[in-house]
Each structure stands twice: as C-alpha cells, then as structure tokens.
C-alpha cells in the first residue's frame, strides 16, 4: 500500500514534532512567559539600576550564587553515589530509602527548616554532639544555608539521575567489565558519560531549586545580611517595605539565572 504523498520543504528539519505538539508547546511556554512579562511590565526600571548596585543586593546575590553552587556540588557528589546505589543495588529497605530521599520535596519549607533544627540544631540529636566535640555549629551560619539548600534541592538531582541510570544499556557495562574495568571504572568511564545529559539536567534542577530556596533557609539559618541573607530572603524583606523593589530584585535574580542557564546549556546540552 502506498502512503498518501506528503512532500515537505527541505528547510524543515527532520524529526520536528507535528503542528499539534508545537502548538501545545507554545501554549506551555506562554504560560511560563506571561507571569515574567507581568513582572517585567510592573518593574520599576528606573530604580532597578540602583537596586542592582546597592551593596546589600550585591552581597545577597554573591551569597546566593556561592551557596547555591556549593549546595549543587554537594548534591552531585552525594547524589551520584546515592542514585547509583538506588538504581543498581537491590537491598532490603531500598524502597524506603528512595521514599525518604524524595520527602524533602513535599515537606513545607518552614517545617523543613524546623526539622533541620531538630537534627542539626544546637540542641539537635546530631547538632549537639557535633557542636560539643567538633565545635561545629550549622544553624545561622553560611554553612547552614548550604545544608538547608542541599536538603531541599538534592532530591531533584537524585531522582533524575537514578531514572537515567536505570535506562542505560547494561551491555555497555558488561563490555567494559570484560575489558578488565573494575566497577568504579565502569561507572566512571561508561555509565556516567552515558547519562551525562541527565546529570546536567539534574544539576540544573537542584541548582535552580537551591537558588530559589527560601523557607528552610530563613528558618534554619536566619536572616543575617552577608552571612545567611540570600537573594530570596532579601527579596522577602524588601517585599515588606516596598513590593516594587522586591520585583526589581526578583528580576535581577531571574536575569542572573537565565544567563547562567543559557550559557550552561550551550556548554553542555547542545544536540
């Protein structure tokens, strides 16, 4: 049977989704773009320059970037082994472990902060010994911010990467093994590269989540300018005084993350 003739212009790349899908996709993009446009329209562009250059803003922005990057690094270095174990190793209680890891996503941020207190706070069952013996105190410190952000953002990394690891063709790993590669080598030189796109995606997710983190941070680390006051906290406070300023600040945050994301994508995910 001959399919109905259907000629298409060359320019149109192969594998382009059909119109219907494109249309829906556009609706989706519009849905996300609209609120941002709204913000942009409302933003006090005249004063935004001052907001940007205000030392407090610069401080908060710097802190946000530092902590969110630190949190992401932490998430990746803890998350990769965790995802590996969850994806490849069948042990009793794996399901529970998996659920536990996904929980911070559903915990309301404030409660998350409190929970962190109960564990790592001065009187927390881990924080107390930590404080007594090592003199390390996490709450109200920059380290605390990183902990809070990691707690909230790492699940996104783990879930993404685990899913990717599951869909790797095991025969590549077998081939590597017969070539004499130990499990660690196999993982480092074969499995990981094969899931690189998902690793990047997961990192982006958790970075973005960490950058936007508010509740857990202000609860667990407080709101000390230069020490624990990240952009979202600064924005929250600004909001108390004058919402316009808050919007301006948010746009700054948004701009920064766009820049980072776009450049990152180019660096990594170009098809």
């Amino acid at each position: 049977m001959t399919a109905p003739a259907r000629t298409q212009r060359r320019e149109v790349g192969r594998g382009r989704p059909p119109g219907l899908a494109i249309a829906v996709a556009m609706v989706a993009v519009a849905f996300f773009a609209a609120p941002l446009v709204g913000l942009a329209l409302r933003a006090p562009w005249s004063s935004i320059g001052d907001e940007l250059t205000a030392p407090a803003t610069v401080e908060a922005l710097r802190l946000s970037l530092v902590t969110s990057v630190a949190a992401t690094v932490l998430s990746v270095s803890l998350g990769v082994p965790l995802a590996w174990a969850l994806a490849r190793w069948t042990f009793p209680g794996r399901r529970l472990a998996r659920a536990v890891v996904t929980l911070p996503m559903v915990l309301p941020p404030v409660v998350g902060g409190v929970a962190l207190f109960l564990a790592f706070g001065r009187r927390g069952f881990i924080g107390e010994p930590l404080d007594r013996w090592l003199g390390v105190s996490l709450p109200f410190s920059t380290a605390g911010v990183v902990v809070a952000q990691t707690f909230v953002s790492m699940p996104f990394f783990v879930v993404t990467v685990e899913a990717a690891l599951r869909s790797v063709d095991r025969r590549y790993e077998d081939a590597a093994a017969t070539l004499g590669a130990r499990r660690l080598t196999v993982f480092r030189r074969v499995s990981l590269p094969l899931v690189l796109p998902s690793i990047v995606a997961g990192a982006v997710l958790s970075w973005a989540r960490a950058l936007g983190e508010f509740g857990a941070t202000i609860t667990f680390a407080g709101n000390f300018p230069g020490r624990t006051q990240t952009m979202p906290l600064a924005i929250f406070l600004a909001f108390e005084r004058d919402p316009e300023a808050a919007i301006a600040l948010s746009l700054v945050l948004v701009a920064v993350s766009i820049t980072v994301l776009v450049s990152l994508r180019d660096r990594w995910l170009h098809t």
Partner: protein
Amino acid sequence: GASGAAHASSAAVAAAAPSGEITVFAASSLTDAFTEIGRAFEREHPDTTITFSFGASSTLASQIDAGAPADVFAPADEADMERVEDAQVGRRVVFARNRLTIVVEPGNPYSIRSLADTVSKDVLLVLCAAEVPCGELAREAYRRAGVPVPEVASAENVRAALTRVALGEADAAVVYTTDLRSADGEVEGVRIPRRDNVVARYPIAALGNGENSRLARAFVAFVASAAAQRVLRAHGFLAP
C-alpha cells in the same frame, strides 16, 4: 532634645558603657525602624555592634526555642513572646503600639466608610489569617463593630494582604496603620473609629541565650528611650 534622650538612656545604663556585639531577632514589620534605631544605638555606644535578623515572629520564636543565639527578641505580638518565656531575662517591655486601618484602592471605588461596608457581597475583602496577629486583631475589631466576621481570602501576613489591594486583586483589607504609611499612593486608608479599633502591642525582651545580656538589656532600654521612640513614631507606631 536629642541630648536629653541621650542622658536618659545613658542613665538607664549603669556606670560602665556597654560594649561588644548582640543579635536582635525582630519581626519583619520592624525592619526599617529597628535598623535606624540600631544605627543610633551604635552611634551612642561606639564599641558596640547590633546585628539584626528579621523574620516572621513565629519563625523567630521557634528559632529561639531551638537555641538560636539571640540576645534580644522583638516579635510583632505578645503570644510569640509567651512562647520564649523561659528564655527571657529581665523584664518584658512594650515599646510600641499599632492600630488597624482599612485600606482600599485609590479613589475608594466602593466608597467604603466602615468595617460594615467591607463585608458586602461585591467587595472582595482580604484579612490576615486568623492564626497570625493581624488576623486575630482584625476579627476582634469586627466583633467590636458588631459586624459578623466574614469568611474571606486570608493572607499569611499583613504585607500580603496589603499587596493584594495594591495590585488591585482585592478591594479592601484590614492592616496596621504603619503599613498604610509605607504603601502610600498605592492604596488609600479608611479610619476605623477608636471604639471599634484594637491595639497591637510590640513587646521586647532580653534573652538568656546570648552571651551579652548586659548589652542586650542596654539595647532594650534604649528602644524604650525617647530617641528610639521618635524613630518609631516617625514610622507610624504609637507610643506604648
């Protein structure tokens, strides 16, 4: 005069001038006033540093509860102060008061004159959630005005309520007079008669958690001092 105020405060503080550093946990509605007061205090006592952490009173309370290194606590209502009672040292001072007011869109399209007017069908009213101070007080006010407390969209805090009116997403809200002044232009205030109105009290107290309770006490005293009061007044707070 300023010097008088200075005398008063320095008198309040015993012989040796306080020194060192303290951390003050204060309700976010006090952000501007306290930042200013803090600077004034530091000017008066050169070798001291006041660090602020502003946030929702309840959050601050539970942080203190969990052993946060706070020397002074200034929440937006007394309930939150109760929660940290056992951490307190020295007496609790009410350093400012606040009143409620109705806010409406500029031009008052629904010509709202009283609380009663806010509960009509076509007016979209916003109150703070009953759980937070401003919500509690607002509902109290309605009771006093003999108006049945309406089922309304409630905001997590005053600011959120005010913003909705400012954005035109709500027609009226009941907030603090202090907020009205900070949002001038975007909204218009409608006074609530004194007999219906409710007063919010702002307590402050030094805490035992901090290492520097002496300086803490000094700061608490200073907040009560005339100089600080002027600042508070300038931000729309009422004298205690």
